[in-house]
């Protein structure tokens, strides 16, 4: 279970402080995939980076007793001038996995072909997303934190990922940030809305999407 307790986060901008998370406390239920909806700039990416411990909150705590992935995005965490193979080995090492297994799984699953030994800065966004997902699947996490990247790649490849996640559903869940309703509907059991610093979880996915629609159509 991942649980947030009294988490606060604000950024300093030209116009003063902007509160992204205002005393947020929330438990993500075990075994459920949760989508996080929010308008542009609501702080969804910041939230997922805080859940994944990539960034510290100003105050409050994040607890989790399962293996959580790093926040998966297009390129986060990878060094552009190293090849996919070298980056895969690095990930295997820091997670204490077998470098050989991770290397081989990633090479096969990402379908990057000869690009696997090219520096990843030469990749398109889609290829970077494919690589990031393949490495994370090789590590067998119990929670996958996904930041808007499911939309990458062509339709056939998207389907392949969905199937892979589906297979892992029994012992893995996803926390997925997106402003695309379709993505959330296809991949999540429930959804939370992040708006003006507060994060509210809806057990019913339809209700969440309904509330989100109202929010989107509100004059700002």
């Amino acid at each position, binding site marked *: *279970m991942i*649980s947030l*307790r009294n988490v606060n986060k604000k*950024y300093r901008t030209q116009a003063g402080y902007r509160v992204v998370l205002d005393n947020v*406390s*929330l*438990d993500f239920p075990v075994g459920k995939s949760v989508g996080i909806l929010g308008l542009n700039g609501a702080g969804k990416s910041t939230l997922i*980076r805080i859940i*994944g*411990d*990539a*960034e*510290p909150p100003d105050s409050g*705590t994040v*607890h989790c007793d399962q293996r*959580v992935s*790093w*926040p998966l*995005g297009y*390129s*986060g*965490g*990878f*060094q552009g*001038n*190293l090849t996919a193979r*070298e980056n895969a080995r*690095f*990930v295997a*090492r*820091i*997670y*204490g996995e077998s470098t050989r297994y991770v290397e081989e799984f990633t090479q096969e699953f990402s379908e990057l072909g000869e690009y696997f030994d090219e520096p990843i800065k030469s990749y398109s966004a889609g290829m970077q997303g494919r690589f990031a997902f393949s490495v994370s699947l090789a590590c067998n996490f119990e929670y996958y934190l996904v930041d808007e990247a499911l939309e990458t790649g062509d339709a056939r490849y998207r389907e392949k990922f969905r199937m892979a996640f589906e297979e892992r559903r029994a012992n893995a869940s996803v926390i997925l940030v997106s402003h695309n309703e379709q993505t959330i509907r296809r991949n999540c059991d429930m959804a939370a809305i992040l708006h003006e610093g*507060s994060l*509210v*979880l*809806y057990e019913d996915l339809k*209700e969440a999407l309904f*509330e989100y629609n109202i929010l989107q159509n509100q004059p700002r």
Partner: protein
Amino acid sequence: MLMALLQADANMTMLSAGVVDSSITPRRVLSAFATQVRVINALILRETKTRYGNYKIGFLWALIEPLVGVSVFVAIFANLRNDSPSGMPLVPFMLVGFVCYALFRDPWGAMQGAISNSRNLLTFPQVTTFDVIMARGLLEILVTFFVLGFLLYMAHLTGFEVRVERPLGVLMACGLLCVLGLGLGFLFASLEPLVPSVKQLATQVMSRPLYFASGLFFTVDTLPAAIREYLLYNPVLHMIELVRGEFFYEFETSYGSWTYASAWAFTTLAVGFLMHQAVHKRAIVKK
């Protein structure tokens, strides 16, 4: 809106039910330590690839840089006056001075950009700012020790007399240089994301004068008394003197002070760690 409030309320009750255990047990400390070792090891391997792997002559650069310095000064001194400084053989004398100086300067130099240059690595939860800074420093130290050994061996093969009087003492004095370099590295690496100009301070204002004032190509006893008094405030000069005193049979330093050098080294390391502790959270967020 009402729905949202109700929902928040439900979450609150769920919260109080779940008890989170965050006590510190020996087992957790051990596993945290194991993770840290694993991460620093992975970072060093990766850093090696980025620093040296892309160039076929990679490690050669690490050898060429001190060799150039040594050759220039050997050439000058050999023509200027025929006696070697304080009776030490000229080439090993210069080698020890230049390479040991790198034990202090290279970690410091490599570490100071660590946070801003590896920001995307911090996406991984187990990779901390401490790890990325430390990994860079350790890699430099390892490479420099390798260079020192290699060049001394080469000097030996080409017929120069290389005999080490007290190897443990040499290691200890070299250790002080490393500690001072690591301390400055942590200090500058922590400040650099917040105040980028500290990099210029390091390379332009501090590093260059130190190069000429740390006894790379002279010993303290050959200095005029008026200058000596001021230069002896420089802890690096003390450390280089100590290394030479331990290394050469022909030379015992009467100026290098273990106490003064250690005090500087460990105080700097403590200040570096404290500065890192104080600002690392802000340094991560700063873009």
